[in-house]
């Protein structure tokens, strides 16, 4: 095997995103005052906390060839629900499970339409995107509910850290969940099945994988996590509104895709997706600190997205060319089984 093939095998896009992430961090530390302190980094992470959470099940979905565009609406619905219940005087301990239940039911509806009715997930979740956001505004109207209990709010805020460390609670929670999801995706039969479903659903079904059930589970989990993110969002901003998280779905998907997860399914790593989320978060923070306007940031995000798919292609083409030239010299016959 030539060195070139080994190189291209290890220099995958998700690793590249990881490297880029570190580069951005180092560049920020070196050039920008006020970047590399815990306050700022906590805030930067805080800004992407819901995106990061939702990105976990979204990665699983995209790997399985599905997509859930209704997540941001579900976040808003959960927020509106939490707000109206809190306003009505319910205990916060009760509100959380109710919101989670709503999330699961919403996810179930998505999953049901996709698996039982057989509709494409993109179409279904565009529909539920509208529906859930609509329900949110039915529930809470134009109100904004505030004054959530400090006891819980502090866990969502990035100013409180876990006792004895500088790690804020949501970061710790996210880390645990991310590791769990990574193991599930890359080291279990469940994960293998998702890859198979995403790459070729029929073949997965013929191999005895419970395609529909797995998809249903994914959508439910996605709804669940989105509603949980809704609670965190509400607590973090201290404001429950029907329009919370509007338009977040595309940011989540952009982050996941930036991390090298293939939208057609069957390819991608969770590490890549997480790196994608963090890269967008850190880069936005760094650019804002340097007074680069939001408009330019948006352009940078777009360019990164295009690069995320174009770069691997270019590398592949170049290495293919290179390879063909070397192959002309050294002949490698088809090898038989060892």
């Amino acid at each position: 095997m030539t060195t070139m093939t080994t190189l291209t095998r290890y220099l995958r896009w998700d690793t590249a995103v990881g490297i880029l992430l570190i580069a951005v961090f180092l560049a920020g530390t070196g050039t920008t005052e006020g970047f590399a302190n815990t306050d700022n980094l906590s805030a930067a992470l805080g800004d992407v906390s819901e995106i990061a959470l939702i990105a976990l099940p979204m990665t699983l979905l995209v790997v399985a060839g599905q997509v859930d565009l209704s997540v941001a609406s579900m976040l808003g619905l959960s927020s509106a629900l939490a707000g109206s219940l809190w306003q009505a005087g319910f205990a916060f301990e009760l509100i959380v499970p109710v919101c989670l239940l709503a999330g699961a039911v919403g996810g179930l509806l998505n999953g049901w339409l996709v698996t039982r009715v057989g509709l494409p997930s993109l179409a279904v979740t565009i529909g539920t995107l509208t529906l859930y956001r609509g329900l949110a505004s039915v529930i809470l109207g134009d109100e904004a509910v505030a004054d959530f209990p400090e006891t819980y709010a502090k866990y969502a805020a990035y100013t409180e850290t876990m006792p004895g460390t500088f790690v804020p609670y949501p970061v710790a929670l996210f880390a645990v969940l991310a590791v769990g999801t990574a193991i599930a995706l890359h080291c279990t039969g469940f994960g293998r099945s998702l890859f198979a479903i995403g790459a070729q659903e029929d073949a997965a079904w013929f191999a005895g994988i419970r395609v529909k059930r797995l998809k249903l589970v994914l959508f439910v989990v996605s709804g669940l996590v989105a509603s949980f993110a809704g609670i965190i969002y509400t607590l973090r901003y201290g404001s429950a509104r029907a329009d919370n998280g509007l338009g977040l779905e595309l940011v989540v998907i952009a982050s996941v895709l930036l991390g090298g997860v293939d939208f057609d399914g069957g390819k991608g790593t969770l590490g890549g997706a997480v790196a994608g989320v963090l890269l967008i978060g850190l880069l936005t923070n760094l650019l804002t600190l340097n007074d680069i306007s939001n408009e330019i940031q948006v352009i940078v995000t777009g360019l990164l997205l295009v690069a995320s798919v174009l770069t691997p292609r270019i590398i592949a083409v170049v290495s293919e060319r290179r390879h063909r030239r070397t192959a002309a010299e050294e002949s490698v016959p088809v090898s038989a089984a060892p």
Partner: protein
Amino acid sequence: VSGCSGTTKDSVKDDTPAKSGKAEANPDAPLKKGLKIAFLPKQINNPYEKIVDDAGIAAAGEIGATGKEVGPSNAKASSQVSYINTLIQQKQDAILIAANDPNAVCGPLKQAMRQDIKVVAYDSDTAKDCRQLFINQASSEEIGRSQVRNIAKQLGNKGEIAILSATQNATNQNTWIQFMKDELTKPEYKDMKLVKVAYGDDQDQKSFQETQGLLKAYPNLKGIISPTTVGIAAAARYIGDSSYKGKVVLNGLGTPNQMRKYIENGTLDQFSLWDPKKLGYLGTYAAAALASGQITGAEGEKFKAGDLGEYTVGKDGEIILGPPTVFDAKNIGDFDF
């Protein structure tokens, strides 16, 4: 009550206005040089906000401070938060904010105040304990009630009216609407009826279609109040081109440059607004006064705002720019903004 009331569960508790590091006000202190003042509008692409901020930045130049405008490109509740965080890291001296949501920005604003950064809300208020001052373009009560008074006069205190607002959660809009509804309960308006509040989300095209919808759904509609510059322009355009022209009275808040054409072609007779440039100007002076220790935000303190003269801090740290101007065919030629 004024400002952000009515939008939160139980109107903000007035316990501890978090005015940290509270020093005594020294009315005679000179304005500090080299202050860093940042404007954080609802969204950077809003033309109205841009007039305000540009005037404020110009004013900062006059007093030897540096001003800048940063902000999100959408008017979502949460998108201002990350900007506040970076402004804190950049160690600005004062942040002027037009809040998209009174509560969502609270946490980071409090953190800013803890780090001795002055916080001044303008245009749209935050919760009261999250800022030191609120520059109100006009008394909210005055705006709300005058909108009803003006249109009632045009309609002879009779007929169905509707409101075309911005987003469902805009603090200032909702406050004004609250006062409008309150005004309408007075006996002299007993023949007037508010049939609907529609939301155009401060998007031109949405507002345009909402106007259409209102006129279609309520055939007896006699008047529309649109207390938002985007909404009134869109409504005027629809009415001006449709068969409703001359049959439906439009009033509200708009800028003269946007509305000039419709005043001239008779689509509407009057609208009102304050001078957004003065709002920005006053904002900068107020922030500088705070940062220089002339005032602390307590009721009754006074400071000089350049050409605009002296202002007094009112209840809850509110400063009122002045009464809105009513524009009509006679005076519109005198204004250019």
